[in-house]
Structures are given as structure tokens and as C-alpha cells.
């Protein structure tokens, strides 16, 4: 019963994992990368900055994965999974970078626990220790909601990553260079769907405008400055989000104008995720995301 595709059965046991381009058992996402912190940069600040960028990506990704098997069509299911995978990849690099820069950030785990640093940060921190913006964490709504959330998020993140490519930190510069290509697609996907829904039917227009109103108060947090961001921007390592504000506004105005949607006028929501103040929805997200890992603090996955 052999046939030309029978080779597919071979090699599950005792095979060389070298047949896969990167092996199968790699654990450190920064393996082989120069992780030296540039001179004169405060390690704890760099770590906290990486957490901000990494948590944004991780929590956005987590919300996007909830769409898996629930999208309006197969093509959009695949697109949303792609975007979630890109952001998850960015999160892994940034969390690993945060842990390498300041091992003091790592939550306590049982002695000998094999849990890698990126996972210790993702699964064993409590809500107050996360640094992501609240836009990333609020509960999902309808498809219009995910389109608006991603539009606001990716417009700001792209403007930031474009500038971060010039970071004197080689890891951040590399993450940004890769991320720019990815987030360019995310922004394009979101903008095209925003236009489609705004100009589609009466119902779709109503839904997308409703989502925009609901999420608009969370937009300013994306372009607000945290002291760590300012300090690292001065050191040539980070980007002050306030410097992207003009570009972010211009891009959003352009998308809104071509879609025929008025710019909302809601005031920003007080408080902020960058200092660890989160929403009620965030507790549910973390409970889901962390439940298996926390049940097995010495587990090997």
C-alpha cells in the first residue's frame, strides 16, 4: 500500500528535527540575537517600555483570536488569524526582551519551573502589572467593533514602529522593522473594511459608526506620553507617542473622510493601562488566557 506520498508517514519518531527549517524545539525567541543594552540606557526603563509595546500586541492578539471560527466569511477568519499571529510574534519578542533587560520583572514561580521568561510574563502577572492600553483589552463586539479597534490601533502602532526602526537598541529596531511590514497590512485591512462597512448598507454604516463612538474615548491613550516613553525617546531608544499624533490624526481623518463618517467628539476616558489601570473586561480576558498555565506552574509545554 505504498504510494508516492507515503513519505508523509515517516519520521514521527526518532527523526531528525533538522528537517524543519528551525528545528522543532526552539524556546528562546531571541536566540542568536545581540541583546546587549545600549550604553547609558536604564535597564528597568527599557524593560518597562518593552512591556508596554509587548502587552499591547499580546492583548490585541488575544482578543483577535476570539474571532477564530466566528468571522463573517472564511477569508476574514483567515485574515484575522493572520493579524493575531503577527501581533503574537511581536509580543513574544518584546516580552522576552523585557525579561532579558530586567529579570527583576519576572513573577515568582516554583523552584525549577521550566516556564520560559516570555510565558512567566504573559501568564503569571496580575492585571495591575500589565502595561497595555485599554483599547486592546475591552471585550469584543460585532465585526464593526473589531474593524474599528484594529483601525485605531494599527494607525497608531504603524506610526510608532516606523519611527522605532531608528532605535539605538538593535532588538527594538529589528522588531520595528519587521512590525512595520505586518502592521501596514493590518491597517490596510482595517481601513478597507471601515470604508466597506461605512459605504455598504444602512445597517453596516450604523454599526461601524456605533463602534467608532464606543471606542473613540480610548483612542487618545495610544498617543499619550508616559514618562518612561519620554525618557527613552530622549535616549534615542524609544519613541514619544505624542510625536506621532499629527500623522495619526491625518490618517484617521483621511479614512473618515473617504468613508463619509464624521470624526467623533467624545472626551478621552480618564486613567490608563500604561500605569496598570485597566477595565473590568480585562479580568475576564486574563482569567481565560492564564487558566491552564497557572494550573501548572511547573508544567512543560
Amino acid at each position, binding site marked *: 500500500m505504498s504510494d508516492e506520498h507515503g513519505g*508523509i508517514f515517516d519520521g514521527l519518531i526518532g527523526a531528525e528535527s533538522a528537517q524543519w527549517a528551525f528545528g522543532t524545539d526552539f524556546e528562546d525567541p531571541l536566540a542568536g540575537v545581540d541583546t546587549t543594552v545600549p550604553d547609558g540606557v536604564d535597564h528597568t526603563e527599557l524593560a518597562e517600555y518593552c512591556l508596554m509595546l509587548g502587552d499591547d500586541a499580546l492583548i490585541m492578539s488575544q482578543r483577535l483570536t476570539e474571532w477564530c471560527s466566528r468571522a463573517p*466569511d*472564511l477569508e476574514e477568519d483567515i485574515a484575522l488569524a493572520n493579524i*493575531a499571529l503577527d501581533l*503574537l510574534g511581536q509580543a513574544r519578542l518584546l516580552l522576552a526582551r523585557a525579561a532579558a533587560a530586567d529579570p527583576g520583572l519576572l513573577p515568582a514561580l516554583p523552584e525549577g519551573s521550566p516556564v520560559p521568561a516570555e510565558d512567566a510574563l504573559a501568564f503569571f502577572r496580575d492585571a495591575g502589572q500589565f502595561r497595555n492600553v485599554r483599547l486592546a483589552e475591552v471585550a469584543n463586539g460585532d465585526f464593526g467593533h473589531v474593524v474599528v479597534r484594529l483601525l485605531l490601533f494599527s494607525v497608531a502602532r504603524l506610526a510608532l514602529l516606523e519611527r522605532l526602526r531608528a532605535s539605538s537598541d538593535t532588538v527594538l529596531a529589528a522588531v520595528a522593522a519587521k512590525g512595520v511590514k505586518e502592521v501596514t497590512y493590518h491597517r490596510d485591512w482595517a481601513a478597507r473594511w471601515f470604508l*466597506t*462597512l461605512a459605504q455598504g448598507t444602512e445597517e453596516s454604516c450604523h454599526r461601524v459608526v456605533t463602534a467608532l463612538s464606543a471606542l473613540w474615548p480610548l483612542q487618545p491613550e495610544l498617543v499619550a506620553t508616559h514618562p518612561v516613553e519620554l525618557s527613552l525617546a530622549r535616549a534615542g531608544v524609544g519613541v514619544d507617542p505624542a510625536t506621532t499624533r499629527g500623522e495619526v490624526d491625518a490618517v484617521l481623518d483621511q479614512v473618515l473622510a473617504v468613508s463619509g463618517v464624521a470624526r467623533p467628539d467624545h472626551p478621552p476616558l480618564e486613567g490608563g493601562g500604561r500605569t496598570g489601570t485597566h477595565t473590568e473586561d480585562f479580568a475576564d480576558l486574563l482569567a481565560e488566557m492564564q*487558566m*491552564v498555565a497557572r494550573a501548572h506552574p511547573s508544567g512543560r509545554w
Partner: protein
Amino acid sequence: MTTAAEPEAEERLRAAFEATIARNDRIEPRDWMPDAYRRTLVRQIAQHAHSEIIGMQPEGEWIGRAPSLRRKAILLAKVQDEAGHGLYLYSACETLGVSRAELTGLLLAGKQKYSSIFNYPTLSYADVGTIGWLVDGAAICNQVPLCRTSYGPYGRAMIRICKEESFHQRQGYELLMTMMRGTDAQRAMVQESVDRFWWPALMMFGPPDAESTNSARSMAWGVKRNSNDELRQRFVDMTVPQADALGVTLPDPDLRWNDERGHHDFGEPDWAEFAAVVRGDGPCNAQRLRHRQAAHDDGAWVREAASAFASRSAQAGAR
């Protein structure tokens, strides 16, 4: 197309079709084919496509709870691959003249089936590994011969699908291997998962040959290449050494090597259970269809908006 041909012309076309099958060549979308061949293919490819789409659910449940970021990425990419497989297979079906929307309607109306295995629940993260190892492993045994199936678009889709499935199987096995190197609780979780999935995996090859209603003609047409029992035996023989290497016990007291046959003997799956799950009375049948129906209904306004936008843009372009 069968409709327009005169009786004599149809005889010639049928002879050409039979000759193509006999040569083990491919039938292509524009070739003449008997109506029954077309119907059989639509039924089989649609069932396969639906299985990929419904199959996103049991594992998709665990993406949000994946216990490491690496595992989350692997699982998300895998479930995304399944959506992709559904897409190629619906496209292969469209070459036979049936649209994706029509097929989705038949699935939701319960008029077309999907693989019964997805009507079993996923209860722990080990199930993600077990589904990769046993369920994808069984699917590969079923599907590799289909790479040589007589209908071209189906065979070509299957080549790509099998490559991805074999990657999924390897990832599933690697997860279980890693968990077996972990804590006692993790090892127990793996064994418990294998206990639940072993028999349903054996049922994936369908009823015994003597009771398989669709098999004979599908074999004659080269749509199907091996019998259910042959494939089931191949799967058992392939899996036993993998279970040993993993360090788990397969839950079948009758499982042993038979020197005379050169194969493993094994027990009989519970065919009454199989019949019940196929009939719609499995643990998750209603839940799986409800989930798909909800996604379909929730997305209706988006699909309408996209159509409205596209036709408006086309009109604007024409002006």
C-alpha cells in the same frame, strides 16, 4: 456536461471517461462525467470541506487558553490552516458547479455531514496534542490516497492539505512528547486524553467494509483508493510504536501483534456509538452546528454590506 449529448455521443463520452479512469489519469472540470460521479464527488468533497470548518471549533476553544505563547502561535496557525483547507475544498467543489453558499446552506440544514470526530468535546489542553497525533494522523491515512484520486482539482487540493496535515500531526505529537517530560499531572492528562480519543479515531475510517454503502462504486471510479478496513489497519500498525515511544497505553485489551498476519489485531469499535454520532446524537453535534449557524447569522450583515459596496463600486467604475 451530460445534458446536451445525444445517446451515441454520450456513449463515446462515457467510453472516454472510463478509459481515463482506467489509465489512472485525472478527470478535469470541463471533461464529461456521469451525473452520479459528479454527485459522489460533491458529496465527498463538501463533507470534507465542512469537516475542516467544523473542525476549527474543538481546538479553537483552546487558543485563548494555550499555556505558552509558542503553543498559542502553533495552535492558532493550525486552526487557520483548517480554514484554508476548507477554502480550497469549497473551491474544488465549485469546479463541479456548486457554490460555497449553497454548500454552507446544506451543512446548516443538516443535509450534508462532516466528520463525526468533531462531535466529541475537547476537555483539556492535552486534547490539542491528541487531536494532532491521532485525529490528524487518521485523517492523513484517509487522505494520502486521495492525492491520487481521479478528479483533478480534488487530488491537487489534497496534496497540499496532506503536507499541512502531516505538519499538524507532528506538532500534536511533539506537544504530547513535551507534556510527557513534564509533571505527573501532565502525563495523566495525556493518558486520559488518549483514552477518550482512541476509539473515535478508529471510527474515522468509517464502518467495516461489509457495511460501507458508498465504498464499492467510489473505488471503481478511482474516487476512493483503499477500503475502510485496510486504512484502519494501516493506522493501527503505524500508531502502536508511536504510543510506545510516547509512553502511553492505548485503551484496547485486544490490541496485540499477530505474527501470522504481519499486522496488529485490535478490538471492535462501538459501532452503535458511531451510528448515534453520525445520526446527530453525539456529545457535541448540536453545539457545533449552533456555533456555525451563529457565526453565519452574525456575519450576514457584513456579507450584505460587502456585496452592496462592491456593486456600488462597480457601477461607479462603469460610469
